């Protein structure tokens, strides 16, 4: 047993639902107790989907356990087929149904339905949501995709975008445009908006674009082995990664690399003088492995931030994230324990967090601004406007999104100059936000080392430091004092530390 407070990922059957809900013409019969239908609201409320997920639940109760839950499943599967007339039927069990071992696959097979029946094995007590999505897409592809003649013109499939994904809807549009510029057509996008009949056409593509390794890698590997379709390894999030992606695709497709950068603004926005204040901002990056790797690269190479810590919640990505952390010279944090992440952030006291909705809550509590870069996300991360993460526009969106939580450049200077002015006082916060964020100092203070004492005068001097760097000043000074075995911090110590850490 392991105590969980908040979870980054749901159970594997929720991953299967993300695939089923993204698709059309497919129905999923889930053997599950009453109550598991809560998962519907993830899609209808968080993502504002205007259709119910194509999922029928057997919703068995205690009194059914005494009789025959297998009959209940069989009847539910038949009724679902009769009512929805899907092109293919998926069947599986949630955590409780896994325990009663009714064999949904066998039962559904025995119905003799005139459409393919795809049984799913979703080990609820070992694996999680991303595995469930990845495994489900693999099983769909295995069941439906067959070798066939390639399209005359070079084409590819886009693999991985699901329902409830972070900006998947808009990433599809952006990547499709990137490929079109190079004269490459998109054959099938899956699972997003694909029908089982579309999946059957998978083999016509020349190669696959793996958009999200978390949900599409197993399918891509299988397609490589069985349909002889190579797949891309670069995820085009950020300017550098988009350029790399274009090169990789050009090689796979045998065409010339081509990237229209006329709409690309990140590099100039980053170079313009207002962005000087971004230099060396200490950021902590956490999320799914793919988005963390992309965000860390952007943070360092395209924004000029300093990555002070990074990690991911999906253990499947532990290896690449550990390697990435080595490259960045930081300790990787591989955990799905929210409290551990919070403790690490409190300890590092970064000036900004790039994380998930969990980290947004941590940031709110600690008074550290946070930009969301990865699932799990909430309703506000499904914006009405076009807002991709991938490609050229994705890079522009990322610049805006990451800078938004911070105090703006010129404003930062004004804060220095007019520290005593009521309008620019420390607690006022960024002028473009309705509510001033709590100064990051609160976090540092709460977790500050108790064995160093600030003398009154030094404490007063520290208050003169603008709030958004005060946390860092406090931490640095305390570390400086601790290193030298000083128990007290005077004004002198404060300025010695400042000189010591001066860049």
């Amino acid at each position, binding site marked *: 047993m392991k105590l*969980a407070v908040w979870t980054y990922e749901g159970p594997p059957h929720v991953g299967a639902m993300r695939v089923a809900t993204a698709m059309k013409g497919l129905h999923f019969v889930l053997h599950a107790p009453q109550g598991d239908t809560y998962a519907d609201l993830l899609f209808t409320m968080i993502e504002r989907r205007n259709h119910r997920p194509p999922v029928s639940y057997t919703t068995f109760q205690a009194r059914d356990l005494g009789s025959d839950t297998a009959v209940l499943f069989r009847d539910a599967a038949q009724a679902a087929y009769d009512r929805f007339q899907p092109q293919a039927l998926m069947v599986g069990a949630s955590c409780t149904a896994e325990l009663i071992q009714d064999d949904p696959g066998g039962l559904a097979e025995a119905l003799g339905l005139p459409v393919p029946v795809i049984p799913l094995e979703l080990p609820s007590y070992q694996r999680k949501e991303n595995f469930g999505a990845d495994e489900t897409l693999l099983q769909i592809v295995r069941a439906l995709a067959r070798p066939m003649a390639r399209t005359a013109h070079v084409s590819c499939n886009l693999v991985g975008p699901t329902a409830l994904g972070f900006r998947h809807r808009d990433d599809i549009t952006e990547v499709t445009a990137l490929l079109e510029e190079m004269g490459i057509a998109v054959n099938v996008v899956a699972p997003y908006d694909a029908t089982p009949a579309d999946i059957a056409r998978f083999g016509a593509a020349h190669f696959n674009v793996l958009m999200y390794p978390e949900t599409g890698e197993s399918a891509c590997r299988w397609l490589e082995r069985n349909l002889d379709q190579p797949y891309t390894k670069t995820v085009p999030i950020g300017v550098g990664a988009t350029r790399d992606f274009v090169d990789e695709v050009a090689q796979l497709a045998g065409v010339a690399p081509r990237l229209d950068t006329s709409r690309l603004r990140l590099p100039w926005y980053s170079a313009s003088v207002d962005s000087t204040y971004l230099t060396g901002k200490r950021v902590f990056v956490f999320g799914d492995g793919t988005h963390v790797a992309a965000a860390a690269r952007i943070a360092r190479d395209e924004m000029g931030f300093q990555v002070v810590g990074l990690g991911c919640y999906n253990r499947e990505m532990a290896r690449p994230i550990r390697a990435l952390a080595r490259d960045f010279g930081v300790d990787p944090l591989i955990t799905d324990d929210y409290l551990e992440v919070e403790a690490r952030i409190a300890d590092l006291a970064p000036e900004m967090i790039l994380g998930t909705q969990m980290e947004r809550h941590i940031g709110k509590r600690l008074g550290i601004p946070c930009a969301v870069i990865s699932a799990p996300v909430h309703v506000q991360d499904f914006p009405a406007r076009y807002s991709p993460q991938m490609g050229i526009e994705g890079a522009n969106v990322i610049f805006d999104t990451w800078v938004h939580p911070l105090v703006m450049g010129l404003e930062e200077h004004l804060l220095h100059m007019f520290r005593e002015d009521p309008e620019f006082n420390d607690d006022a916060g960024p002028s473009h936000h309705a509510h001033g964020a709590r100064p990051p100092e609160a976090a540092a203070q709460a977790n500050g080392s108790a064995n160093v004492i600030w003398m009154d005068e030094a404490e007063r001097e520290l208050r003169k430091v603008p709030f958004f760097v005060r946390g860092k000043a406090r931490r640095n000074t305390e570390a400086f004092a601790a290193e030298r075995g000083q128990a007290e911090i005077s004004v002198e110590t404060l300025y010695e530390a400042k000189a010591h850490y001066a860049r």
Partner: protein
Amino acid sequence: MTIQPKSLSSCAQAPVLKERGQHEVFCGLTAIIWLHRKMPDSFFLVIGSRTCAHLLQSAAGVMIFAEPRFGTAILEETDLAGMADAQQEIDREVERLLSRRTDIRRLFLVGSCPSEVIKLDLSKAAERLNAIHAPQTQVFNFSGSGIETTFTQGEDACLSTLADGLPQDNAHQLIIAGALPDVVQDQMLDLLSAIGLSDVKLLPQRTAQDNIGIGPNTHVTFVQPFLGDTHDTVLRRGAKPIYAPFPFGELGTTAWLKAVAGRFGIDPAVVDRVTEAPRARARKAVAAMREDLAGKRVFLMPDSQLEIPLARFLSRECGAELIEVGTPFLHRSLTEPDLSEIAPGPVIAEGQDVEKQLDRVRAARPDLTVCGLGLANPLEAEGLATKWAIELVFSPIHFYEQAGDLAGLFARPLRRRALLKVAAE
């Protein structure tokens, strides 16, 4: 409102449509979301799966607290394969929790679908842990599993456990069963005090220190209609239940107060006198919404068991026309006073086959459908106005001062649709 024992012209005698099929409802674990707020010295430890943890955070919608007073001990492969002794695992997790959270005075071990299917005996665990941790921390257990409970039945299971554990007390007293938002609870206590009942006991108790007992001279009234098991438990403990319409709207609140007053020998005229001003306020507030709701055809899907009393409020006080009133369970004794105030006409349905019920919704095309979050947006996309039912559970809706708010919850979706001049495609 006059309360007739059994009028021939009401839904109390109507045949009930009983359905079995896919249930689109939460499980009882969801009740933890509001119960832990009502009992600030408590912790709810679900013994379950990742699904349980995911449900709790999805139903809560937002994460307000970094470390909430509930959590899930997630069963793992080793627990199921019998490699680890689940009872020992519970002891270890509880030990760890209580050493970190020394403020916990009441610990609830909450059963889930998987813990019940593997027949994990939580009452045994609670007994053993009580021997170790009481009186510092009392340990209880109840089931919030989907195979045993739907949504609000989680509160019922919790309160039933609490009622079962109350010490014997022969004093003449009143217990009010059902969790209410603090603001509403205070209004209720003021109203009761105004009619002369000031020593009122509450279930659930706010803290473990609020000692209450139960016995043959205890009278119990309910402010939530979903407390069927709690009702049966207090009966077993010898207490005497007070049946009344639930205190929604002006009429419901007055009828409820008079039923309580009657049991304690208080003249109904006293109730009329002290409630004159709030009754007028409630009437005025509801009247403002009535123009949006009068004559509107309403379909209530089964969700929280609040459906019957809310249907009474909608039809009797807001002038709405009821098409179907669904409820997960129909507890006759508790809901009869409300049922008998609903004029014949609507289908009264118990249980659910969601697909068939949606067919009926589409055929009837109601002006307003009260339903769960999983169905609301899809129905809106079909051009049907909806009110999500969960808001009725989380919002203050009881008693006079909330009557207008309650009507407003139903009226707002209709007003909104009238305001929007761009059609959603």
